């Protein structure tokens, strides 16, 4: 079966005023159709850059990215994205925000609104369909952003630390919501986070990245049963996985520390 996403030898170089900096160094991975992959790593390891490149918002310095077998040059409607900030259009109501994508793809207002209303029900915001974003809490705004990204029925959903700006309680609720949503939609999901717990709870597979320059340290398959909820964090199998991940991260941290000490 053809992978939904293929990233091959991806390198990304930024021009800064101190010269060129390698942000991402020869990263390769595939994502199978319907798979949920989390990329974990410290801030500055280039995980968001990798995601933006898959989205077509940034151009690779070297390497290839294929989505559904086709190379990515620019944003495409069958790839949805949820950012760390909701980035809702402040002048549109919740319904109009979600209906924006279908409208842009040429659907009539009635059709687009019907799609929006289905998604509004799915993310539990029926009472707020006509509200403007500035009247919603951070968690509700991010639910709208997720619904908006799903409105074009994307084959691939990219999520860039979507719960990073939320408080711990809201974040746990959002993770459970996403797990429930995921069982209803068919999209392939790539989810970037710096939170190892979040990654293991959500993913089928976790890619652990390291900084300076960003590269993949290890892949960890998460074979926890689905349907899942955040209470999976209390199970021994979960703790064993988390220990594996933490060992990798600790070894890398030590190596980086010794290296900086030697230089």
């Amino acid at each position, binding site marked *: 079966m053809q992978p939904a996403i293929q990233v091959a030898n991806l390198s990304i170089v930024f021009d800064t005023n101190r010269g060129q900096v390698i942000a991402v160094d020869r990263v390769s991975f595939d994502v199978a159709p319907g798979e949920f992959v989390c990329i974990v790593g410290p801030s500055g390891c280039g995980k968001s850059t990798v995601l933006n490149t898959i989205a077509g918002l940034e151009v690779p310095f070297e390497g290839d990215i294929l989505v559904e077998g086709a190379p990515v040059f620019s944003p495409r409607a069958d790839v*949805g*994205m949820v950012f760390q900030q909701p*980035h809702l259009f402040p002048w549109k109501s919740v319904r109009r925000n979600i209906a924006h994508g279908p409208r842009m793809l040429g659907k009539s207002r009635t059709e687009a609104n019907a799609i929006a209303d289905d998604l509004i029900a799915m993310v539990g915001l029926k009472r707020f369909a006509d509200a403007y974003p500035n009247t919603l809490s951070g968690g509700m705004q991010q639910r709208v952003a997720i619904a908006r990204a799903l409105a074009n029925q994307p084959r691939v959903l990219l999520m860039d630390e979507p719960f990073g700006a939320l408080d711990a309680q809201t974040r746990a609720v959002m993770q459970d919501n996403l797990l429930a949503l995921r069982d209803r939609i068919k999209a392939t999901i790539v989810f970037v986070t710096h939170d190892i717990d979040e990654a293991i709870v959500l993913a089928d597979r976790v890619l652990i990245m390291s900084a300076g320059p960003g590269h993949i340290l290890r892949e960890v398959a998460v074979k926890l049963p689905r349907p899942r909820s955040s209470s999976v964090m209390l199970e021994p199998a979960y703790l064993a996985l988390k220990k594996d991940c933490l060992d990798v991260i600790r070894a890398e941290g030590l190596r980086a520390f010794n290296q900086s000490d030697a230089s």
Partner: protein
Amino acid sequence: MQEAASARPEIAIRADGRTRRRDSARLRRLNILVGALSLPLFIGLWELVSRSGAVNMVLFPPPTVVAIAVLEWIRSGQFFGDLAASLFRVATGFIIGGALGILLGILTGQFPVISSLLSPLFHILRPIPPIAFVPIVILWFGLSEAGKLFLVVWGVFFTVWLSTHIGVQKVDRGLVRAALMLGTPRRQMLQEIVLLGALPYIVVGLRTAVSISFYTLVAAELAGAFAGIVYRIEIAQQNLQTGQVMGGLAALGLMSFIADRLFAVLAERVVWWR
């Protein structure tokens, strides 16, 4: 005994809270009262000072004399002609200058090439006070209406251009990226995202331009006109009709005030999502 001791401080706090609330209500009523008295108090004081003989009544007429002058101005039929002439200049100049400012602000804000071409020129011309153009406007346009409109348009344009330019440039890049990911074509980005994103800035620019249009109106009418509120102030000054001069000033202030209030109401409706 112990119970009583622990209950007492609570009662004390509550009682304290109640008095404080009563105090704040009393303070609020006092403020409203003083506010309502403010204008009558100053007008009364003005009347007293003018009539006391401490100042020259011809140069500093009391409010009653000013009121009579204004009534005569209205009765003579000149007032409404003057008002119409001034309002026409302000409104037409504002609309033309505002429209040009928004149009060019979008162009320079959105297209770097156009900005490179025009922004240096605009930034050199913008700080010159519009009033300084009066002499050359008289050379170019004489005492015609076109010259007066030119001054108002000139004053309004740069303010609106700059705020629109900044507004377009400050549109949240995150919104643009989100819109791109939702399949928004680049050519629809302007109407869907950029214009609405810049709208709050444009409205602020237009509101500033309201008062600027009145400044430039003064310059335009002082330079020579055949009707208008400021023109009438100048004529009255030459005839030493100080009452009418002050009446004219009051009329100008009132016009500008009403225009600003109206615009504030409008602005709230234009930016509907706030």
